[in-house]
Each structure stands twice: as C-alpha cells, then as structure tokens.
C-alpha cells in the first residue's frame, strides 16, 4: 500500500534540508570549539553543548528524512539502502552518497557518545570524517533532490556552503603555520572543491533531463516500497 | 696491590677487580674488545634475574642519568610487568641504553661511550639476558658522528658475544630527548617529546612492551657489579651513596674534565684537584640543578644528604664553576632563555611560562623595573613548576630560583649600575639544536 505520497515527499525534502542546516551549524560550532573562541555571552561550555545537541537533533531529522523516504512507496528505497550504498536502483549513485554520509555520521555520533571510553586519537580521527560527511550530504542533496532547481533550496545550499567554507578557513587560519602541510592541502581543497561542485551543479543537476541521467527508474509509480 | 681474583657467579675465575678508583675507564685504555676482556675479564650474562636483582640491590646502585632512581627497583618493575600475561601482544621486555646526554654541560656519557664502550654494552647484555629481553637499543645524540661510528665498530666486534643483537639509534639533538618517555616515543616512530604517563616505559614502552631505560653509566656500573659483586662495588663510596660516579667538571674556560669520584669528597677538594679555584659560585646538576654560593660550595660534601641541605643534588653529575670575571646574571639569563626554546611545546604552563620567566630574569638587573621583575618572577615560578607533563620546567625553575638567591648581591649591583665583570665571552654552553623532533 502506498502511503500518502505527497505528504511523505514534502517531509522527506524538508527534513533533509533541515538536517543539512543543522549539520552546517554543527560544523561551524565544532570549529568555534576547536579554535577556542568564546565571549561573555557565549562561554565555551555553551558552544560545546550546542555543538553536541544540534548534532543530535540533526541526526533525528536525518532519521525522519530516511524514514519518510522509505515509508513513502513512490520510489524503490528500502531501510537497508539508508546504510548500504549501491543497492537501490533509484538514482543509485546520488542516493548512495546519502547512505555513505549517513554511515559516516553514525560513526561520528557513536564515537562521540563513547569518547571517554576510547583513545582520544581514535575519536579525533573519526571526527574528521564529519567534514566529508557534510560535503557528501550536499552532493547527495544536489544529485538526488528534486529541489535543486528550486530558488529557496538553492539559497539554502549557498548559505550553508558559505558558512562551512568560512568555518573551514577560520580553522585553517588559527594556529597557522603549525601543521603547515595539512593546512595547505585543506586550503587548496577548500578552493578547488566548491569550484568543481559549482561547475558540476550547473552542468548536471541544473540542466534539463537530469532526472533521467541521475538514474530515476522510468516507472516509479509502479514500484511499491518493501 | 692485592691480586685477589673473584669468582663470578658461574664459578669460573675472572680478572682482578680494579682496586680503588678509577674503575670504569682503565689504564691503559681498553676500547677494543680484546683488551677490554683482558682487563675486565669476561662477563657472563645469565637468565638468573633473581641473581642480578640481588646483586644490584645489595650494591645499592642508583640511576646515573639524573633522577637517581634505585636500579634494582626499576629492573624488578620491568620484570614484573613482563611477567603479566596479556591478551594483547607480547610482553617481552626491551632494554634501552640512554646515552643521549642532552644536558649541554655534561660530557661524561660521551666520554664513557668513547673510552669504555664495551662496559656499557656488557651492562646492556647483562640486563637483557636477566630480563629475557629480545631487543636492545643504544641511543646516542646524532650530532656525535664520530662516536656513532666507533660504537658501530665496537658492536661489530662483539656480534658473536651478545645473547641478543644490540642496535644503535641516532636520537634528535634536543634537551628533552633524554627524558625517558620522550626517548621511547621517538623509538616508537614519534617525536622525541614526553608522553602522558602512566603508563611509564617499564609498563609500556618500545612497541608497547615493558622497557628498561637506563643511563649508559648505570649500565656500565651494572656490568662491573655483575662481574665483581656487590661487596666489591661498595668498597668505595659511603654506605648511603655507595660506588663511584662520573662527574663533568668545567669552568667554561678549558676543556671540561670528567672525574670518576666516590661519594663523601668535599666539593672544594674536587675543584682544586681539577685546577679550579674553589672560591666561585658553582652550578651542581646542570641546567636541571641548582647554584651554590662560594660559601656553600666550600662547605658541602658530595653526598646526597649534604647537597640536599642546600637544596641541591648531583643529578647528571655536572659541576660548573662560574669564574669571578663573568657576569652571572648574563649567564643565567642566557640559559633561561635557551631552556624556554627547549620545551616539547605540549604543556601550556611550560611553553608560555619558561619564556616569561626568562624575560623577568633579563629584567632583574634593571634599576627601573628590577624589583617588579623580581616580584613577577616569584609569582610565575609556582605557576610553572610541577604543572608540566615532565620534570623539565621543575628543573628550570630550580636553576633560576637558586641563581636569584645566590646572585642576589650581584643583581643589586646591577640595579645600581655596576656590573664590573669584564669577561664577556659566554661560559655556560647553549647549543643550537638542529630543530628535528624525529
């Protein structure tokens, strides 16, 4: 039985967007913690607490995003496809990016909840994956999402990207020139990657016929979830 | 001279044990294996850990690297750690000989390694056999190219002799490299910076295995004890400070001397013996140690308790007399500034505190801010001492605090615009590090 498609579909897109916004805020707050900025109105424990709580709320919205997608029978996506990539025939690559991002975020969340019970170095190494998870989530959104051509969605993407880039540059700048090699690599990546993504977005998702090229099955209406 | 030959534990006869001093470095020199064995006789490293522990324990040998920790206790700790069964990996111990000698004014370890390398290597073999170690490393500061080659030759000579192969490692040229956990961290592929303890190297060191880290002189003494027994070893020195120890004696104007002495001697006698006028302030223990005023130096004997009366300790054995013609404030400020550049950079109080303290020392002699600098120095010292991850800041504070006490009058002179010390060439050595941490 196909559940109320329209409602689910809106919820999926909305919760996905909200999750992205929350993740963006989380990345920014993570950087604020890392560089050690604080003010009288934003003491460090507030920054750290917000970072943690917003991340957890983001995961909730992510859970909603996944649940509404799966429960919505309109497209052939099952529960397993949320964590195992390259299973669903629906826009396989772009969907899988979502699964990969989710996998990374689960790892970050679990290690963070258990950070006192593991080596600091281990926790830190996994935590670095959150940058990649954010980027991959954006690519997932651009490739899978039906809102890529929508003006509001584009505004949100651009705003989130601006925040993350600013946070990234702040992180690179503070403590310069210690650990110069990774900083330089990150700087170069932070300039190249947005450029590549921008070019790709204009030539791919924003172009006519993306839906087909992305791998949307020809008769989604006939597929039933489960 | 009696010719009593002492049976070794294995029952066969060894050479005559040296009577009196010196005992570590023979006359004539015996740097090659053949003459070494002729002079000292063979040593038979055995797996009898209990035997070695009782010998070294009875002898009362303490570490010669500066901390003075009882060697038998350390050996036992490594053995105990190795004996614990573990689900994760091997517990076979490792022996590390610390010959890095990062203390700039000290040359005793380099001297020992140059003129009695086989004694140090014997000690390593003895410790390794008793502990059941399968790996032994001799660490030397990489700036000593010549020494490295001669040690490599010495090792080649005894390839068939040692129960396990001993390898050489050329450690970074930094003050902090010789710190136990820093050396182990470097051997494990990391930077030569101290690591968080616990666990200490005796629990988890090289490759996470129980590791014995001993100064090269300690191991050389161990080799003597293993040959000639604890009773012989205690025949020099005092009951509370038995045996002999090497000291570096310098006045900065001539090549430093290395003496092998026994506890109990008066410092002034030793200085006179070295041709140094015993009327100057003396730094005991290197930059980790403390200053003695001329009066204190004249009164003190080289025993742990007597030195402790003046808040001093022999440490790594550096005894540096500062000539009367040299400005002590300039010297102390130079060394304090250098120490600030030698931190591992890991602990805030040390990284920030030592340079801040160096700045106050530099300002001590100024008429305008001298008193404020003094107050600031007193405020900073407890903020730095004891708040690092290793003992380096503690040693630096001790060095500065004792200097400020001993040179109080000269500092006052400075504030009145009079130094009067015309010898401007630096005395205390302050090497430039090559900067590498690996």
């Amino acid at each position: 039985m196909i559940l109320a498609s329209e409602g689910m579909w809106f919820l999926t897109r909305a919760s996905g967007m909200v999750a992205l916004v929350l993740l963006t805020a989380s990345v920014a707050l993570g950087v604020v913690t890392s560089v050690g900025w604080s003010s009288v109105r934003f003491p460090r424990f507030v920054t750290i607490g917000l970072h943690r709580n917003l991340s957890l709320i983001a995961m909730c919205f992510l859970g909603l995003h996944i649940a509404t997608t799966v429960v919505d029978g309109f497209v052939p996506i099952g529960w397993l496809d949320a964590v195992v990539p390259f299973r669903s025939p629906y826009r396989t690559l772009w969907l899988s990016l979502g699964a990969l991002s989710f996998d990374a975020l689960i790892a970050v969340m679990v290690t963070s909840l258990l950070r006192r019970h593991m080596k600091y170095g281990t926790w830190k190494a996994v935590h670095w994956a959150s940058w990649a998870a954010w980027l991959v989530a954006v690519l997932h959104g651009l490739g899978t999402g039906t809102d890529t051509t929508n003006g509001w969605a584009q505004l949100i993407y651009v705003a989130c990207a601006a925040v993350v880039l600013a946070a990234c540059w702040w992180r690179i700048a503070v403590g310069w020139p210690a650990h110069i090699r990774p900083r330089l690599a990150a700087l170069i990546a932070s300039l190249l990657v947005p450029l590549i993504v921008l070019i790709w977005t204009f030539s791919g998702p924003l172009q006519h016929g993306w839906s087909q090229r992305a791998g949307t099955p020809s008769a989604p209406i006939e597929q039933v979830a489960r | 001279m009696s010719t009593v030959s002492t049976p070794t534990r294995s029952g066969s006869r060894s050479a005559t044990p040296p009577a009196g001093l010196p005992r570590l470095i023979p006359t004539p020199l015996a740097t090659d294996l053949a003459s070494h064995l002729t002079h000292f006789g063979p040593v038979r490293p055995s797996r009898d850990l209990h035997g070695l522990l009782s010998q070294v324990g009875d002898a009362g040998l303490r570490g010669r690297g500066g901390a003075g920790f009882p060697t038998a206790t350390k050996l036992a700790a490594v053995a105990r750690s190795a004996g614990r069964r573990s689900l994760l990996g091997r517990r076979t111990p490792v022996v590390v000989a610390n010959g890095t000698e990062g203390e700039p004014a000290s040359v005793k370890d380099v001297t020992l390694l140059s003129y009695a390398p086989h004694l140090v290597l014997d000690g390593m073999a003895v410790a390794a056999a008793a502990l059941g170690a399968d790996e032994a490393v001799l660490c030397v500061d990489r700036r000593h190219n010549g020494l490295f080659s001669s040690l490599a030759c010495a090792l080649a000579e005894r390839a068939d002799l040692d129960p396990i192969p001993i390898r050489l490692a050329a450690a970074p040229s930094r003050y902090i490299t010789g710190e136990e956990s820093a050396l182990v961290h470097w051997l494990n592929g990391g930077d030569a910076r101290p690591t968080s303890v616990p666990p200490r190297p005796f629990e988890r060191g090289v490759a996470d295995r129980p590791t014995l880290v001993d100064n090269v002189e300690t191991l050389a003494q161990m080799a003597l004890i293993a040959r000639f027994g604890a009773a012989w070893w205690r025949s020099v020195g005092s009951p509370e400070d038995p045996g002999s120890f090497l000291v570096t004696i310098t006045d900065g104007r001539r090549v430093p001397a290395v003496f092998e002495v026994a506890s109990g001697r008066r410092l002034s006698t030793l200085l006179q013996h070295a041709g140094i006028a015993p009327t100057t302030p003396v730094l005991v223990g290197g930059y980790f140690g403390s200053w003695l005023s001329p009066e204190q130096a004249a009164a003190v004997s080289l025993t742990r308790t007597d030195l402790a009366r003046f808040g001093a300790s022999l440490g790594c054995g550096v005894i540096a007399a500062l000539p009367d013609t040299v400005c002590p404030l300039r010297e102390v400020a130079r060394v304090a500034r250098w120490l600030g550049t030698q931190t591992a950079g890991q602990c805030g109080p040390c990284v920030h505190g030592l340079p801040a303290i160096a700045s106050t020392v530099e300002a001590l002699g100024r008429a305008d801010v001298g008193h404020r600098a003094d107050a600031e120095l007193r405020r900073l010292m407890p903020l730095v001492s004891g708040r690092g991850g290793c003992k380096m800041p503690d040693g630096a504070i001790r060095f500065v605090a004792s200097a400020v006490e001993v040179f109080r009058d000269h500092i006052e002179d400075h504030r009145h615009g009079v130094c009067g010390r015309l010898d401007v060439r630096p005395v205390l050595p302050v090497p430039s590090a090559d900067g590498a941490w690996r």
Partner: protein
Amino acid sequence: MSIRIVLDPIACDGHGVCAELFPEGITLDDWGYPILREGDVPAHLERHARRAASACPSLALKIRRTGA
C-alpha cells in the same frame, strides 16, 4: 567514596571549559591553562566536576576515585 580531578598536562590544550563548569575547583592561569585545587572534590560539587571532565574537548581532565 570521594573523587578528585586529575589533569593530563600534555593532552590539555587550554580550552578552559573546565573552569567555566567547575569554577570552585578550577581556575585558569595567565595563559588559560587550568590550575586544579588540591584535595578531594566536596560531595556537593561532584556533579560539576564530572561535567567538567566530560566536557573537556581534549579529554585531559579525568576523575579519580580516592579510597574511603
């Protein structure tokens, strides 16, 4: 059973969150690094000490039980 707080100076990066959350037991020095008050943590403050240890971004602050 009482507890005390212990600092690993090598892991500590001077974030200072601990001093914000447990000012009764932790103050910051000139350079932003924590100075721990000696002795056991008073029972009514244990909650804050644990929170401070848990919030440390570098996991440099730890709780140790002290006998009794």
